[in-house]
Structure formats: C-alpha cells, structure tokens
C-alpha cells in the first residue's frame, strides 16, 4: 500500500519483520523488543533498519541507537491513545532524531496536522481511503500558538 511521506503520496519501501521470522534482504523494521534483544545481529543486516514503537515503549531506551535507525514507526493501537504524540516530540526535540517518523495503525486522518507538528513526517493509515484525507488535512491550519518541531 502507498503511504504519505513529506506531504507526498509514495510507495512504501519498508517491510516489518515479525520477531520470530528470518530477516529478508532490503529495508526492514522490527519490534522494539526485537531491537533491544538482537541489536548486534540486526546491525549486520544489509539494508536500512527501522524500529516499531508501541504506546508504552520508552523512546529514551533507543535514544543512543538513533544514528543506526532510519525509520521509527509509531504504532497507534487506538486514536485516543495520545502517548505517541509525546514519543514523537521526544524523538525529534530531545534526541534530535533526523530519520523518518511514521504513524501507522489506528490514528485518525484528523490527527495528522498535530502529528506533523510533533515531528511525524510519514503516514501509513489503516485504510487506503484515508490517504487523500491525510494529504488534505495536513494543511488544516496555517497558524499556531506553540512551537513546532517539524
């Protein structure tokens, strides 16, 4: 499925690899647990690496690894769970992460403006129908009261 990245529709080049599966060639993302358990093995992988973060995962624990990580996926269990907004902010502001931060899972197309403001630059929604909505909603506001990190 296509995704939105940096305000544009594009193809997704990444694949997520389950914890117990072999690592295929190419750009792969793995779970937060897998990263913590098998970092050395992963670093030998040819291709770029990504980590999938859940709401309860503390991004501080991968802060020192961020230069090896090209993609952080924020996996929304539910649009009402706002913890990942802070996780994104921490990644960009506190830890100076420069790579791709991608919202995946059950976020709402109506949350993408806020997500972009806390540093999320890519969106892989649960439904393809949401792609045009996301592109439009990224431009919901032209003004703001708080500093942005995007």
């Amino acid at each position: 499925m296509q995704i939105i990245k940096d305000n544009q529709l594009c193809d997704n080049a990444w694949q997520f690899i389950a914890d117990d599966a072999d690592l295929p060639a190419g750009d792969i993302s793995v779970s937060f647990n897998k990263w913590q358990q098998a970092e050395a093995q992963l670093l030998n992988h040819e291709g770029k690496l990504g980590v999938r973060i859940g709401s309860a995962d503390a991004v501080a624990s991968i802060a020192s690894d961020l230069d090896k990580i090209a993609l952080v996926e924020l996996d929304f269990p539910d649009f009402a769970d706002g913890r990942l907004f802070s996780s994104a902010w921490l990644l960009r502001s506190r830890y100076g992460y420069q790579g791709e931060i991608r919202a995946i899972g059950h976020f709402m197309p109506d949350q993408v403006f806020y997500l972009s403001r806390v540093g999320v630059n890519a969106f892989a929604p649960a439904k393809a129908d949401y792609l045009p909505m996301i592109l439009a909603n990224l431009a919901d506001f032209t003004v703001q009261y708080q500093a942005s990190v995007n």
Partner: protein
Amino acid sequence: MYQYNPIDQTLVDERVAQFRRQTEQFLKGEISEDQFRALRLRNGLYIQTHAPMLRIAVPYGLLSSQQLRKIAHIGRTYDRDYCHLTTRQNIQFNWPKLEQVPDILAELATVQMHAIQTSGNCMRNTTSDHLAGVAVDEIEDPRPYCEIIRQWTTLHPEFDYLPRKFKIAVSGALHDRAATQFHDIGVHLVKNAAGETGFKILVGGGLGRTPIIGQVIKPYLERQHLLSYLEAILRIYNLFGRRDNKYKARIKILVKETGLAEFSRQVEEEWLLIRDTMLLSDERINAIKGHFQAPAYQADAAEDNSFNQHLQNDPAFATWYKHNTAAHKVAGYRAVFVSLKAPDVPPGDMTGQQVDAVADMADQYSFGEIRSTHRQNLIFADVKQADLYPLWQQLTALALATPNIGTVTDIICCPGLDFCSLANAGSIGITKEINEALDDMDYIHDLGDIKINISGCMNGCAHQSVGHIGILGVDKKGAEWYQLTLGGSSENEAAIGERLGPAVAKDEVTNAITTILDVYVKQRMDDESFLDMVKRVGIDPFKEQVYANH
C-alpha cells in the same frame, strides 16, 4: 479584555472550516461515529438525551457586550431562545441541530469566540476569579496569565489526546474564588521576598467520583517559566497517566499512585530539560497585560450622594446592595452580581431577551464587559455607585435581581436527568422544590452564607462534594435517590463534604434540607456560619434530625 490579532482570528476561522469539513465527512459516512465523537467533543458538541448540546468557551469568564448579543442571536436563530451558564464559566445551548453547528461556530468566530476544547480528553477552558482585576484582596490581575495559558493550551499538538480531561484554574487573590485546589493544575499568583510576581503551582486536585484536594508541587515558580512548567506536568501526565480505566485516568490518580515526591521529581527532571527553551519574555507578558488595562474610572465616583439616599429610602435596594454587590478596589465602584437564581428558573439559565438586556446594561454601566462566575451567575465588574440604583431597577424588571447571592438559594445545579445522558437523577426539580420551601427572603438572609450544590450523578458537574450542603443524585433500582453531604468547601480552607447517612428518596430531599437548616438555626452560636458550625459540631446533630423518623 483580550482582542484577537490576525493570528488568533485565522486560527478560529480555520477551526470552523475544519469542523465544517469534519461534519460533512461524518454525514457522508466518511468518518466513523467513534472518530467523529472525539472530533465534535473537541468542539464542545455533545449528543444528549434530547438533542445535541453545544458548550461555548468563555475564556476565564470574560465577555464583551458584543459577544453577549451574538449569544442571544444564536439562541434565537439556532436554539430555543435561551442559554445556560456552566460551573466552568462557559455557556451552553441545549437544542442546536448537528448540521447547523458549523454555522453557529462561524457566527461565534465573528465575535472572537469558539467552542474549542470545551469537552473531550484535552486541556479545557482556563478558569479564574470572577473578580479578577477589581478584587480588593488581589496580588496581581490573573487574566494576562490566563490568556497566555489559553493560547498555549489551544490546539496544543502534543496534548490533545490525554488520558482524560484536564482543567487549569488561576487565582491572583488571597481568597480563592476559583476553586483552584480542585483543579488538575491550580495556579496561584504569589510574590517572593523581593516583591516579584511568580506562581505557586498545585497539582492533582479534582472533583467527580474521587474528590481530592490539590497539593503544592512548586511553592514558587518564576513567571518566565510558567509554560515550561505546565508543559513538563502535561508531558509526564500524557506519558504515564492511566489509560486502562477512565475513572482512574485523571492526573489526581497518577499523583496519588506515584506519590507527590516522586511525581514532583519526574516533573522537575523534565522541566529542567525544557525550561530554557520556553521562556516567557517580559515583553510578551507586558504585551498581554496591555489588553487588561483598567478602564477609565471616574475619579470622583465616590462623591456621588444619590446612592446613599437610595440606600436609606429603599429597603429593597439596600437588601440587594448588601447581598448582590461586592467590594471594588477603586473607591466609588462596586462589582454587581446578576443573579441567575430566580426561584422559578433553572439555575444558570437566561433567555435571549435577558442576555440582550444584560449586554445593553454592560455598555451603559460597566465599560461594555461582563463576567460569568463558576457559581452560574454573571457580574458587572465596574459599576460606579451612582449607577447602582438605576441598574438595580433594570435588573429587577428582568428578574435578574433576586437578592440571594451567596445564600442557600444561590444553588449550583447541573442539567441533571432533564437534559444529560449521564445523569441518574433530576437536579433542576430538586432546586425548584428547595426554592418553593424557602420562600421567605428574611429567613434566607438570616441563614447567611450557605452553598448548596446539586449534581444528578457521580460525575459531579455541580461540585456537590464541595458544597456546604452537597446533594448527589443516585439511581437505586430505577428510582431517583439522593445522598447528602455536609461541610464541603472549594475556597481557601478546602474540604470535601462528609456523607450524612443513607441516601434519601426524592420526595424527602427538601424536607431533609429544611431540617438541616433548622438544626443550624437552633444550634448556631452567635453569628457562626453554617460551615463553621458543621466544623464545630460535626454531622451528628444534623444526622439525628434528618433520619429521626426512619
């Protein structure tokens, strides 16, 4: 008062366009019911028992006459020609049509108003002292800081999907009239030894099912750090507040379960990392203060003689003056309460005609401004004494001068079972019955300062747990029953009311209340207030009489 600049105006205009688009997408089925619920709540729109309810933000309770006229117009055009004032200084409409709400919001935007974040699990309207800027016991006017907080909370991208709703109240006076000890964050303006203004920050207070008194987390915060400190608290709460149980999701539970010491440590650690990046400059503070300059008071206002003559000649005016006006820091001026507690009207309700008339009176007598109070009344903050008599006459003609402010019939009351889908029991009907039983104004005045708060369910929108007398509606096998509490207070000596005993049936509530009042009248010492007597004797003497026949 604060006037929007082009950025503020653009923001509310774009918010209207966004909600119009969201409503259209929902009506076309492109947004699910669940998603639209979260979006409409963040624009103040509930779906209630009979119809949607729209809650409009009144930042720290301040309104202009122009805004009031718009409220009256909206009531006439889109609702049933009345509106309701809430305990968070906001205004509600009970009968709007869902598809017309974007138009209502567009109308509001033309007078610098909105309904942003008046509901939902986000940072809500910041409330404050209704006597801000005029109170005799004020350290500094809190409104500029309220406005700074308002802007920071509005559309905050990181904190719009919190574990639960989040409420901030600010007090700038010695006497707390903003219930700051019962807010998620309470901000008190204080002076340090050098005479500089800063803030004492309280955290973890709240009402609802688990009433808790807030605790001091920062005894003195320099004013340039206000927003960074709030942000640090919010980030810790957003990351660690409980999301597994909505009844344990407020910050009060996080603070209680984490312990104040450890919670403070986490906040401090976070704050030290951000405080230098979010400094509030003196320039910014002064620019906002510029919006809250004192109006052009008349230097000779106190020299007017007509006022004293009216006081002597007209006992009804004198009674109203005593109960419905408050001291003002400028000689010759008073703050005037508009009582929305006429005996036969649901507390806090106003007709469109009354709203329009209040707007006219604000223009004529109080520099075109009005405030809402958390006890569901209005205030003209700056009335010179020569104008009190004609203002009283006009208010009397509109049934807005019932001399009962601070008395037993100045009841805080939620919409209850009549309107609210959460309620277990009626509250407006109970208020009406109590009013019918207490129809002797002299008796009411003799009782003095008694605050009755009535909520129709555990959510406690009418703050029953901090009422001197609290009445809480509960469902008992499909019937409406009421639990009574005594001794609560939301002011300086904050206290949560103690339960009197088993719940009483609906037809016994008024009797119980009059019995409680009789016990007070018989057993009070000298001019002891009701609250003081409850503190002295406890609940037993009341309990004995209320349950005597059971």
